[in-house]
């Protein structure tokens, strides 16, 4: 589906006409990311991150496939094979640093993408399915990133795998057998490393498939926009190509400038020195911390320190998973008729002065050692996190009076729009 004024694909010559009859792939691309997809004309730079996320996924797959040609998934030689890539494989250091930092930057981009969705309530009807698929992609990404971090078989790889699979042992009765089943043994070893490698190779393609569904679902209602007012007429939109291809191209350039600065000049800044020590089951690192992109969730996991009906550990595990799973319900928890946070005075206050500081505290505490005052701060922030999504959002969205919305996107941009008169056709003839 698209708007009636969307441009139609016209095969230019005999060959493309022939292709269009047999397999209309050029038509699909034209309608998906070409001139055939009308997009609101008022998108700001927060709308760049979807394309950037797609770029990151492709880059991770390309660098990952090359790394897989040289990596050996065996507990005896995995660490050495990574060093072989770093030292002996032509441009191997570039592939590995691009892949390792690429994972971090993929999360940077995805977090900004999610932030956009939360602030502008992109998850609201009619875009619930896009949001739900997005949360699925995020969960798949977390699983993929976690298993990828295990592959170098350094100290943090090993102990990270041990801690995270150990979470399942919190489940009553069947917890321990589940952990043993997941690892293929009583501790991470060859069986675990091999299955993590297999899944780490598989899941990115599952993500790619889900991304296709995500974009498909997007093209039914079309992109949201910063005013949250739906597209009304042709003057509200511009064709994706060339307007947003060129804007995304510029955004990609800015992204690569920052990304390359890390890859070439600070390649280990986001990593952990302990992972350059080969895995040693007999020596526990002083502080086991996950990669920075898991810190907020790790803080929620560790915030539950008191047994209350069920064990503290089980509370932590449930809360950590719940902290993401509740996102699935967002379209139904937030009942405000207005999308954009720009026009929601009360929501905006809770978002900027409640939710964002809580998230920042969780981020800092997740990377800090498990000691006071970090524990008590993460407990306060955890409480707010759940209150924000499950209590504040439903109540605030029901009681606040939104500010006046612009009549249309065109009016928001140009300060004037010819309001349609009853009976007049605003859409130009197709």
């Amino acid at each position, binding site marked *: 589906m698209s708007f009636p004024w969307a441009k139609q694909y016209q095969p230019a010559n005999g060959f493309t006409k022939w292709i269009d009859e047999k397999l209309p792939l050029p038509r699909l691309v034209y309608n998906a990311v070409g001139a055939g997809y009308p997009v609101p004309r008022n998108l700001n730079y927060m709308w760049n991150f979807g394309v950037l996320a797609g770029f990151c996924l492709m880059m991770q797959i390309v660098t990952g496939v090359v790394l897989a040609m040289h990596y050996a998934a065996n507990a005896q030689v995995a660490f050495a094979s990574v060093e072989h890539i770093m030292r002996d494989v032509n441009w191997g250091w570039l592939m590995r640093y691009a892949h390792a930092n690429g994972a971090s930057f993929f999360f940077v981009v995805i977090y900004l993408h999610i932030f956009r969705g939360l602030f502008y309530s992109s998850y609201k009807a009619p875009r619930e399915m896009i949001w739900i698929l997005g949360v699925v992609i995020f969960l798949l990404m977390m699983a993929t990133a976690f298993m990828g971090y295990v592959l170098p078989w350094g100290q943090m790889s090993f102990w990270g795998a041990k801690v995270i699979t150990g979470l399942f042992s919190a489940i009553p009765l069947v917890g321990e057998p589940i952990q043993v089943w997941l690892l293929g043994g009583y501790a991470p070893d060859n069986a675990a490393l091999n299955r993590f490698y297999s899944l780490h190779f598989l899941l990115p393609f599952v993500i790619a498939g889900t991304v296709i569904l995500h974009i498909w679902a997007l093209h039914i209602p079309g992109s949201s926009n910063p005013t949250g007012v739906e597209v009304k007429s042709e003057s509200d939109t511009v064709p994706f190509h060339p307007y947003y291809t060129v804007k995304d191209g510029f955004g990609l350039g800015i992204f690569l*400038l920052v990304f390359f*600065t890390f890859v*070439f000049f600070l390649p280990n800044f986001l990593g952990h020195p302990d992972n350059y020590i080969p895995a040693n089951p007999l020596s526990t690192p*002083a502080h086991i911390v996950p990669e920075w992109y898991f810190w907020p969730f790790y803080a929620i996991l560790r915030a539950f320190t008191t047994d209350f009906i069920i064990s503290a550990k089980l509370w932590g595990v449930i809360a950590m998973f719940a902290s993401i799973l*509740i996102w699935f319900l967002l379209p139904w928890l937030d009942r405000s008729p207005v999308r954009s946070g720009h026009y929601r005075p009360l929501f905006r206050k809770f978002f900027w002065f409640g939710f964002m500081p809580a998230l920042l505290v969780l981020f800092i505490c997740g990377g800090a050692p498990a000691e006071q005052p970090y524990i008590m701060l993460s407990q306060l922030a955890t409480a707010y996190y759940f209150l924000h*999504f499950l*209590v504040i959002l439903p109540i605030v969205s029901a009681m606040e009076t939104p500010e006046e919305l612009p009549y249309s996107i065109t009016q928001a941009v140009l300060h004037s729009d010819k309001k349609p008169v009853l009976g007049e056709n605003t859409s130009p003839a197709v």
Partner: protein
Amino acid sequence: MVRLISIFVGIGFAFVAMVAFVIGVYGWATEPTEKTAEYTFHLYPRDFQFSFEGPFGRWDQVELQRGYKVYKEVCAACHGLEFVAFRNLADLGYSEAQIKAEAANWQVPGIDPVTGEATTRPGTPTDYFPSPYPNDVAARAANNNAIPPDLSLITKARPNGTDYTASLLTGYTDPNTFQIDGKLLRQEFPDFTVPEGLHFNPYFHSLNIAMAPPLTSTGQVTYDDGTEATIRQMSHDVAAFLTWAAEPKMIERKQTGWAALGFVLFATVLAYLAKQQIWAPVKPKNRKTKPNAS
């Protein structure tokens, strides 16, 4: 219904977190944790200057050669360098013939071609630096139960590793007179002891390290280029050498980075200009008025 249940669940999670908070804060307030000697007297690495630091850094080959000599004559007695091959020494400025001769100075594990028994043979450029011990048990036995770590990645495996290595090597001192900001370790922690077989070093995380001071006197290593081999100089040089050993491609990486950044910057400027041109017709004409929230 969804909202009603979620409000209930949200209050539930928040309540349990707050119960944990109250109990935790009460415990923290009533039983203050005592600061340990490790917490108070552990030192962060000092800042040493190296030629390869910064985005325009270069290896100083003469420095690396001196550092290699320190490794060979001092460190190699206990520490291996398993990921570095003799052929890699070309990075230090040695010729092919020099590397061949140098490799032959080392005995590497081999197999007797006649009997098939394990033996040793002189190294060749393709061999890797041999481990000083046949296995971990032997390493433990010879070192008071502490395995000397392999040094191939040591500067990447420690926070601020290059400075840490140089600081550690120059950091051995007497615990009885050691002080920070006028606070004497002996006074603050009278019970602090250096166990038998360990050595006091405030740059080590537990303050007591199994390694005996390896660099003890000026001139311990005789440098070929006539540089005076002070403890500080030797520490500096070997830290530089180990940084190269941990990441031989570092300079290549930084130089590639400038080319990559230059290309991307050029492409980004072009993309920006293209964007401005393409968007000009649909932008509001009067730029003085601020668009309403967009």
